[in-house]
């Protein structure tokens, strides 16, 4: 019976969900628990004989070509459906440049002639997976970490805080630490850095992080020999493993760290929503190393205490009681609940 598609007569076809991230693209169908594919946002350019990243563009025409090629790859290699007959849900950050958004619309409508597109912002879709009325979504992406408060499926726009604290910041710090460990400039490619990050790095507890910063470093974790093929092997010291994710948490004069971003976002929210938001923190995105939630909770508490000390006017900010972590690459791509 199912083969007859009796349901399809009543219901329209499943729409596709597209999340074109800077590093990874998530593509799948609505109503499914996971995206069909999570692939790097790059495609083989036959003219230039190299892999091209979708987000590397100088002119609008170049971006148009990139998107055409990337979508062709996604539609005909991974998801295997006709673009014409499916509606599209585009998952994107609220801070997507207008040029990108408009070019994507042009590509979808004129080039692929899709029957309909809805633009959905990723914080809202992340919050939908919880079913709670209020959630503070921290999305650690490739370039930026975005903190957005979602109250009853509406993003509180004035409370949107974004800081360049994504995977790239972690990668840059890890590359620097690895250079220090090995005494040379290694120039490791980005995917090797990422591999080292996911395999070895972790976020150390707050006490240890402060101890590292204080000058009396604690006993470091075991170092790892990482072999990178023909280049021989390199040492990943315990220090590098622990401190790679520190850029996300280090406070500077501008209060641009991740905990500060969370507090700033909370402070800009309506007063009556703050308590509910602080009690429902959702960590999403695949940018950070493994399990940063624990560290974030501790750091949030520290930052909140510091903020209270420093700015008594902000006393309305309650201490974050909990952080619920659900770190999965491409959680936003699960916005299958839209229908």
């Amino acid at each position, binding site marked *: 019976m*199912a*083969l007859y*598609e009796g349901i399809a007569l009543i219901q329209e076809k499943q729409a596709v969900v597209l999340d074109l991230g800077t590093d*990874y693209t*998530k593509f*799948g169908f609505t109503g499914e*628990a*996971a*995206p*069909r594919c*999570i*692939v790097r946002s790059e495609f083989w350019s036959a003219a230039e004989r190299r892999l091209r990243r979708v987000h590397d563009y100088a002119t609008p025409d170049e971006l148009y*070509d990139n998107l055409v090629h990337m979508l*062709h790859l996604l*539609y*005909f290699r*991974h*998801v*295997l*459906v006709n673009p*014409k007959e499916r509606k599209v849900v585009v998952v994107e950050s609220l801070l997507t440049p207008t040029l990108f958004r408009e070019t994507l619309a042009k590509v979808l409508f*004129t*080039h692929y*002639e899709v029957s309909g597109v809805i633009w959905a912002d990723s914080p809202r879709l992340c919050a*939908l*997976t*919880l*079913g*709670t*009325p209020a959630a503070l979504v921290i999305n650690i992406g490739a370039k930026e970490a975005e903190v957005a408060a979602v109250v009853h499926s509406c993003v509180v726009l004035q409370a949107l805080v974004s800081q360049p604290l994504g995977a790239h910041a972690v990668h840059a710090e890890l590359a620097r630490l690895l250079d220090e460990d090995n005494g040379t400039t290694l120039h490791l490619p980005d*995917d090797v850095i990422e*591999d080292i990050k*996911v*395999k*070895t790095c*972790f976020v*150390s*507890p707050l006490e240890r992080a402060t101890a590292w910063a204080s000058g009396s470093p604690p006993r*470091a*974790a*075991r170092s*790892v020999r*990482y072999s990178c093929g023909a280049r021989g092997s390199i040492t990943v010291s*315990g220090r590098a493993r622990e401190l790679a994710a520190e850029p996300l948490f280090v406070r500077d004069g501008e209060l641009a760290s991740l905990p500060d971003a969370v507090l700033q976002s909370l402070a800009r929210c309506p007063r009556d929503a703050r308590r509910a938001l602080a*009690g429902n*923190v959702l960590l999403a995105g695949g940018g950070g190393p*493994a*399990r940063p*939630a*624990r560290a974030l*909770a501790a750091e949030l508490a520290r930052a909140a205490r510091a903020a209270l000390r420093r700015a008594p006017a902000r006393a309305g900010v309650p201490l974050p*009681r*909990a*952080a*619920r972590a659900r770190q*999965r*690459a491409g959680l936003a791509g699960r916005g*299958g*609940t839209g*229908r």
Partner: protein
Amino acid sequence: MAYLTQPDYVKYICSCGQLKPITSLYFCRHCLKIRCGFCICHEVDSHYCANCLENMPSSEARLKKNRCSSCFDCPSCFHTLSTRATTQQRQVLQDPAAGGDTKVESKQPKKMYYLSCFNCRWTSRDVGIPDQPVASGGWPERTNPHAARVNQLIDYYKAIAQQEKQEKIERERKKFNIRGKYITLTDKTGLTGAMARNIAGLPSSESSSSAIANFVPSVATAEVEELPEDTFTKEVNLNQITSMPQRLASPDWQPVCVSRLHPLAKLLSVKRSQRCRACDHNLTKPEYNPGSIKFKIELLAYYHVPEVKIISHEPVKSGEKTALFLKLTNPTGHEMQLRLLQPEDIPPPEDKEEPKSIDKSLERSLVLEKDTTAFKAIERQPNISATSRVTSPGVTLTLAQRDDAAEYDDDAQHDTNDIILWRKSNKLGVRLEVDTSEDAVGGSPARALFALQYSYRNTVPPAPSAAHTRDHTLYTTVLLDLGTVSSN
């Protein structure tokens, strides 16, 4: 001239403005225009497994999530897994009462199968998947750990959407129907809304609200899982941790350690058919059989547009004229008249805007002519920055039709002159000159531009209504890559 692995030296300008070698161009016989992969419409034609070459109907492919049921990829290195057979002695049942019969049976070895990767030596036994008694299929399937929760969420939001819709309808009805002028069915029969809903087989409004009532939102926890105690002391075994591609190959589970890897069902491939955007005719249509590489419809430019190859050329010098030898081939089954022109000489495509009459517009609306505005949006100005020009000799060259038997004649016709080097069946060697401008800097890429005018005989059976001309004069622009401008 096009190569598989080398750069393309001769590029044609597609009607959409893209520069492509002739091997990746199409020719629409209905619009009489060159098309390329960028300006045509791709469609999924049929699904098949690239490993077992098994066809799969699209509805079945959709059910199986575009995965082959019998082929698997290695989760470690993504190579195709092979099924290996082992013989396994069946467990001897120590049953004293049964006597000799069981003994005879137990000696029969039983074949068991497991999956193994010949590339990285990963086997399904590594991760504790039990061997299977059948060679194909029957491998345990895993479901997404969050599937139940996601379905619950979908039901919840559907219920909310339905409720909101209903509320809206109620509101509308109240607004317009304050004092019912007409007796409705429900008034007359005393049928309540709930009963009518029940009779119609629609879910009652209570059931939708039960999905809402039973829904439990996710609860935040104050305890965040701590780092394992041995994080700072344990040696990290990199071989036990999966890499990012390994994790992302199975988006549902994203295993973190190697012991959780699971064979990946092979993703199907598709055969695509191509369609002209302007006239909706098929340009290529593959045969249904996955093993066949033939096409039912194959309108490639290679079969319709004269092919240009570079035989040899002098190094290009700025401000000078250099020699260039080209080979022109007529791939069609009809004689072809060729002229070399300058790109500016191509007459602009005449607007076929007939005087508008009611008849015409009616006819047009009946024919449902394709809206070509979308195609206009894709077109763009070709990027041709050529410093050199191929001088046009101003003579019309005639190319004989393609004749496969002529390959075996060796008497080349020798009507050679200043331009024609040699002539052999449907091929022609020509001697031309490249005129390079003064301001071409040494070392910059030398690219020469020229236009081709060629006659084309259309063999499509004419549509009954349209006035039909069989012979057409078509134009195309060709860009030659002649290395770099020599610096002296």
